[in-house]
């Protein structure tokens, strides 16, 4: 099974942070991770940005209540607490997620986000693009393109899974 290891991910996050620095505007910057995994990536990116002298607000949102497939699942997923301790009005927000595939999660995330306020600008940035899009939503930045991967793509992060790896 081909994998990306801890060093690959570290390198990717550094480049990702560079990209954010390059694109930073006048507006206040906020990184909003999607629970779970996206929030961990957002936290790491913020740390990387701070090392480069750029400060950004941290937020995490649980998009479960906005999913469009809740009736299709045999059981209701557990809810997690969202954390958005700042007003999103007028902010430059980056939605951070681990894997984008159909685009349905990203759609739910946008809907979730907009019920907190009216940000000036929203970007979508992901660690992995898995392809197989079902909605017209495309990330503004992707660290790894694994559109040809067969089967599942799983992202493991130390904070949750004891290791940093992308399995596919």
């Amino acid at each position, binding site marked *: 099974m081909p994998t990306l290891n801890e060093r690959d991910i570290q390198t990717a996050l550094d480049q990702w942070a560079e990209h954010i620095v390059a694109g930073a505007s006048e507006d206040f910057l906020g990184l909003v991770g999607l629970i779970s995994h996206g929030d961990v990536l957002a936290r790491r990116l913020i740390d990387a940005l701070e090392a480069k002298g750029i400060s950004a607000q941290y937020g995490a949102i649980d998009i479960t*209540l*906005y999913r469009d497939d809740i009736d299709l699942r045999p*059981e*209701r997923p557990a*809810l997690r*607490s969202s954390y958005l301790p700042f007003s999103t009005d007028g902010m430059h927000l980056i939605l951070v997620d681990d894997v984008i595939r159909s685009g349905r999660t990203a759609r739910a995330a946008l809907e979730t986000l*907009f*019920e907190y306020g009216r940000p000036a600008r929203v970007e979508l940035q992901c660690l992995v693009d898995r392809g197989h899009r079902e909605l017209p939503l495309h990330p503004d930045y992707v660290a790894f393109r694994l559109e040809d991967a067969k089967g599942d793509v799983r992202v493991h992060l130390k904070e949750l899974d004891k290791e940093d790896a992308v399995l596919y």
Partner: protein
Amino acid sequence: MKPRKDLLTIESLSDEEIHTILDSAVAMKEIFTKSVKKVPTLRGKSVLTLFYEPSTRTRSSFEVAAHRLSADVTTFTLSTSSVVKGESVHDTIDTLMSMKMDYIIVRHKNSGIPAVIARHCHASVINAGDGAHAHPSQAFLDAFTIREKYGEVVNKRVVVIGDILHSRVARSTSVILRRLGAQVAYMGPGSLVPPSSHTGIPRLRDWDEIFAWKPDVIYLLRVQNERIESPFFPVADYHHAYGVTEERLRRIDAQDISIMHPGPVNRGVELCDAAMDYRNCLVCNQVENGIAARMSILYHLTPATLS
């Protein structure tokens, strides 16, 4: 959490289900802080409130919860005169089946009626209080309120005071609190507190015993004069013997005890006026948490109509 159709009692839930519903209630409460206090989760689902007993508070709480989950709410109005015998419950069930409701929220003066409806309906049935039997959504909001106040329920000591005999609140709330590791005791008039051999819950005799027991929470039940056919106690005695008087409030304050009440409060009976403004009075928190707890309950039930 495995798919569950109905919520009839706390006893019927697993520990995992209790924790899941409580945890989700926290997430539900966060919705209240957003500028849009609503999520689209139950868009297109229909919720029916079927109250055979008048209750503005519980019904509104469920209705707000359903609205915040974007469900459509219908209120089924029953003139109590036409609903005397149990047969009409069966006829009502047939009507409800034809309406293709997804969730039915029932309150009835007879213990066990929601279970009868649940057995014969595809909809998820939520017991919003049946006789002196169960009131599980109240139990969740109470547990949620205590957990929010103290961070956890385990090892908290809660005295429930008043009409235990007629109280579904006492039953369901004491069950959930004990399942979550709390200690529960009862206190009230002898005619209204069944012996502890029946309840499995110790009975304290008076306020001195309560203070000696060192409770974290004092939970006062509403005196339900309207449900009591022949008098169980002299009403004039109640405040003096069992209520929170000004003097007792000072001791409650000194021991840093919280006060809870399912509402509506009879001022001057269960609680003196000052108790409502007491710093550890959680009555308003209970109301707010009731909406979150009921949203969580609605979210976690899966009607058979959907499969």
